């Protein structure tokens, strides 16, 4: 059995390559910086973190609702309150997310190599809409019935109804509490990593070009 000695030449490995890849693109100082460009002192930057905060409460309240089962919140006061927290967290989430999206649009935040960051953000937006939709279908109340009966026609017209049956509570509930949250979590982490790896975009400069 051989042992490496500190002065011995480093042997290439997948582990080392992975570490170097991450370390080069997202050193911890970039992931959690304690200094930012002075222009970040604008309210528009608050909407992103407010979106994440809302998502955290959506997730936590959703976990509690999922733990006790879909009937719980209909028959207990505490369950109804947790559902209300879930409901209003979702409303806050979408309000902040829309403000974040518009803010980033008018800052043209895709500049300087940040197009992938913008695109992942848009994908998150679209996945969020599907997640909220399956949530409304999973409420087990009149709204769920109504939304399912009426939304089926649009889903069916696209051919999606053959695989995504909005009248099947079990399918919608499973997708809502398991698959989509996993997808959102992965995408949001990726989005944050993208933002931190590149840093916030510089202000638009250059008078005479509309700036």
């Amino acid at each position, binding site marked *: 059995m051989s042992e490496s000695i500190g002065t011995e030449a480093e042997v290439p490995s997948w582990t080392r390559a992975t570490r170097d890849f991450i370390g080069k693109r997202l050193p911890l100082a970039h992931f959690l910086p304690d200094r930012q460009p002075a222009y970040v002192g604008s309210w528009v930057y608050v909407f992103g973190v407010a979106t994440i905060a809302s998502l955290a409460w959506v997730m936590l309240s959703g976990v509690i609702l999922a733990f006790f089962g879909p009937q719980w919140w209909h028959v207990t006061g505490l369950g109804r309150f947790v559902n209300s927290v879930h409901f209003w967290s979702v409303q806050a989430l979408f309000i902040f997310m829309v403000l974040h999206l518009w803010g980033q649009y008018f800052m043209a935040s895709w500049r300087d190599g940040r197009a992938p960051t913008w695109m992942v953000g848009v994908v998150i937006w679209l996945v969020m809409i599907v997640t909220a*939709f399956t949530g409304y279908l999973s409420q087990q109340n009149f709204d769920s019935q109504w939304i399912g009966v009426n939304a089926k026609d649009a889903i069916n017209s696209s051919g999606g109804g053959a695989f995504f049956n909005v009248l099947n509570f079990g399918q919608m509930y499973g997708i809502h509490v398991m698959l989509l949250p996993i997808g959102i979590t992965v995408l949001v982490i990726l989005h944050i990593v993208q933002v931190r790896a590149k840093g916030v975009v510089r202000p638009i400069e250059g008078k005479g070009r509309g700036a």
Partner: protein
Amino acid sequence: MKRRQPIDQETYYSGIRMVPYDLVKELAIALGLVLVLVLAASALLSSPDQTPETIQSWSQNDPVDFVTTATGELAGTTITAQYGAPYNSGTASVQGFGFFSPQSWAGVREPVDAAQDFVLKPLSAAAGADPNLKTALSDYTSADPNQQKAWLEAFAKALKDAKVASDGTLTMASGEFGPLPQMMASLLVLGRAGGLDGYLVSNGHFYQTDYTLPLLFMGDGGYLPGLGENQHLLGSQWGMMNETGSYPGQTWLWLYTFWYQIPPFTGNANADLMVVITMTVLSLALLLVPFIPGLRDIPRWIPVYRLIWRSHYAGETPQPTAADGPSEGRPGGP
């Protein structure tokens, strides 16, 4: 092809004044403020939870509509009976433009036979304890299709003047209805007792979470849409983004709902497919904004950014030089 070298943040921010900034503290404050906000909203406003309708509530509250719908299922005249993919081989609700019909391509994946699933099978299950119903069912199923059609049309016509007795049964003028009065009276009893709710979801299994059949059945009637209209939930009432009561619904679907309110979408037989295609194209455009000339230039033309970064433009930080490369900051340069 020469690969562009990634620019580190130190180079990217050269010439920009950096200030202390506590991201973790900002997140903690945001978590606290949002929590206070949602707790306050939850305590003061609660959340919508209107009791769902059942076949039982439908048949008790509007037995004429229930029996009329069931008669339509037998006659094959309801939305579900004529729907098409993914439920059956009908064509009435299949959308497409010529050969382009994803709905047809996907095929029948959730098979529903309206007459059998909503009426005949439940009645057959109940007929074991009811000799009269068994005879009526036998008479109906063995009759000539033209005879069945004549009975159904006459019965449907008489139902328009039907009255609800104090015991919840229907009274209607007599006519050549064959075994239908017996069949529909039994189905109404089954519906009012709640047996039909259980039968339509059980599908031969103990555990069940699929409500396709009862929801399609209820959707064919006039009772459910009537309740929806009262709650401003119809498609023509921007129903897609509304919620029962005064609660905000899926307001983020406003653009999706908007198309249904204007020509050529409104009232079009292919409206759903047209809206789906429109929204798909718009979603792709949003996704690809950084690469679409015009769309990516709007931020320059409408300088909201000057408001966002007003302290920067007030001269707080020095302008970058040409040597800074990408910090030139044109909106069109992803």
